[in-house]
């Protein structure tokens, strides 16, 4: 077919309109990038995805250069390598990038690239502390550390093009550049609805989750995939678990139905399960009206005995039950089975209506 180009010497198919980065990925070549965010307009901001295109005067950004028929692209030449390495080094000087105190340590694309390109010292001087915007962490959920920000713009893309909450944008110019909310207000005074998608896509430690701070580094964490317990969309999540405790929730990328997105509840409202107020033992009401703790055997025996009594006296239809629209299918199944098969009534319903 005619729609092919030459990728590292190999004829590779592409779909018209595809950028080099995407076409290469389909062709099995992963081109490193920091700013590229799948599904949004490429910005070419980070200059890490540079590739050599035969006949072009300079290296091209693979994320924003469309493939043309027969185009010859080289992704791994010495020149490319050198340019990418230089750009990583320049990014490293854009702020303070000492991983020692960074919550993103171990989950940082910039760090990955520095390692991949075997960078052993910082060639360029870091930005002076006085030239860096102060950290913003007055809201309860998201920490914005501008000393780590590389202005790649993924958060802006995520906010405007993915979640379309339109809360942040690129602001100011040149050395003063900053990712800002409307009026450069702190997040919690802005239009932000705290979906946290900006944190999800931040490739470095500029945007981190406040609640996860200090609870565990990425390598100490086990990821468990589950389904969100809130509305009926059924978003797929990763629970980040350390020592049996959830420390953070992120979205499962490329998974139906949410395709890597979450809302404020799904992302941040997981810790209710650790509330001290949780019911921890069966409770039985005493004659004086107060509850007392009981064993499972005692509580279940009591329920069974009372139900049997009522069935005997008033028939099974004198018992009714409401199942839970939040618990798992298997629980609802068990409950209706219990009502139908054990008690002998169809008086089983649930709050589907709210």
């Amino acid at each position, binding site marked *: 077919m005619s729609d092919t180009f030459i990728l590292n010497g190999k004829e590779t198919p592409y779909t018209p309109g595809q950028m080099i980065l995407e076409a290469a990925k389909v062709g099995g070549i992963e081109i490193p990038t920091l700013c590229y965010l799948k599904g949004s307009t490429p910005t070419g901001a980070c200059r890490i995805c540079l590739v050599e295109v035969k006949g072009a005067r300079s290296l091209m950004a693979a994320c924003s250069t469309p493939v043309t028929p027969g185009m010859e692209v080289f992704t791994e030449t010495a020149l490319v390598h050198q340019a990418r390495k230089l750009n990583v080094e320049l990014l490293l000087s854009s702020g303070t990038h*000492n991983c020692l105190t960074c919550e993103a*340590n*171990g989950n940082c694309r910039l*760090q990955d690239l520095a*390692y991949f390109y075997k960078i052993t010292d*910082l060639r360029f001087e870091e930005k002076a502390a006085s030239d860096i915007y102060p950290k913003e962490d007055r809201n309860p959920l998201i920490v914005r550390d501008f000393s780590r920000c590389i202005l790649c713009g993924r958060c802006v893309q995520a906010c405007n093009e993915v979640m379309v909450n339109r809360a942040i944008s690129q602001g100011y110019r040149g050395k003063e550049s900053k990712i800002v909310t409307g009026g450069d207000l702190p997040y919690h005074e802005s239009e932000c609805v705290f979906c946290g998608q900006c944190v999800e896509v931040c490739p470095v430690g500029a945007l981190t989750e406040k609640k996860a701070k*200090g609870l565990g580094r990425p390598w100490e964490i086990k990821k468990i995939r589950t389904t969100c317990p809130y509305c009926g969309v059924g978003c797929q999540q990763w629970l980040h678990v350390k020592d049996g405790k959830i420390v953070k929730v992120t979205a499962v990328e490329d998974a139906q139905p949410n395709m890597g997105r979450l809302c404020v509840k799904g992302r941040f409202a997981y810790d209710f399960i650790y509330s001290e107020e949780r019911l921890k033992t069966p409770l039985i009401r005493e004659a004086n009206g107060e509850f007392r703790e009981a064993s499972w055997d005692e509580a279940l025996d009591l329920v069974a005995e009372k139900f049997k009594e009522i069935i005997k006296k008033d028939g099974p239809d004198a018992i009714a039950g409401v199942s839970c629209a939040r618990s798992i299918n298997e629980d609802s199944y068990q409950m209706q089975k219990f009502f139908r098969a054990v008690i002998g009534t169809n008086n089983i319903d649930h709050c589907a209506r709210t």
Partner: protein
Amino acid sequence: MDTKITVTIDGQEVSADPGQTILEAARSQGIYIPTLCHYSKTTNVGACRVCVVEVENARSYVASCCAPVTPGMVIRTNTPAIRAAQKMIIELLWSSGDHNCLTCEQNGACELQDLVYWLQIDKPRFPIEHHGYEMDNSNTMITRDLNKCILCGRCIRACNEIQVNEVLDFANRGSYAKVGPAFDADYIDSSCVFCGECAQVCPTGAITFKQAKFAGRPWELSKTRTTCAYCGVGCQIDLYTKDNKIVKVMGNRQYGPPNEGSLCVKGRFGMDFISHPDRISKPLIRHQKGEAFKEAAWDEAYAFIAQRLAAVKKEYGPDSIAGLSSARCTNEENYVFQKFLRGGIGTNNIDHCARL
């Protein structure tokens, strides 16, 4: 027989053995006290002082790794004052050298980093000292970057007390203090025998495994515990692998015998052969004497051998066949091999190089 004594740690009554340090007594109860210079099976030196605790009626904070418990002692490990002291100590250690994890191979497996995280230190209060030490890149096995050294002395004790190679020691004093072989020599020019124990015990990125550099971050590696393939000691080793390659080898310290975490140069640095290009990857058959080998499929090789062995056995009897088993193969393989010769061929002509 000594009797147990009772002390109070963080309000909890704890029974301890006389002579036990506060640190040991606390850890036996699952109470966490951070340490850096402490390394089990070596002398407690109290060098880093991260393990400080409050002891009632003591005039100052006590380094728990060195202080023995005494009856009735009341110890507190987690007061705000102790945490503040620990923060101060860690910040001082941090400022004592170049501790930027971005370019450190030890990132993710650094005990100084762990404590900075654990204590939630945001930035050091003290100016960073730049020593400008040259890296010791003299050999292919161990890299030393003294700019990341916190002078905890673990490498020295490992070298002298665990391996007893007596190569490393402190030199100079005060802020010029550094660790190394005699006459501040590079490793390659010293009496070092490259057991790598110093790199294994180093809590920071000061002494690292050179061949592991840029071969994968700690969190990208898989760890498999196995038994070393060299001499008959049977050291328990942890192979750290990435992309089907061995990145580094560490002695397994989780379980005791036989090596209790130590390794020698072969076990530590002698594993390259596994992914060496010389490895045979396909059966080879020489169909006629004098001919060159030809690559073959397994089935072909099996059939060739079976048919030829059967022919020899038929013509000359089972005792015309012999097998050399291997002292390097597993028990299961030796078992299967001798069973094959005895049960399958019908000869006891089975031996191996036990005598070498």
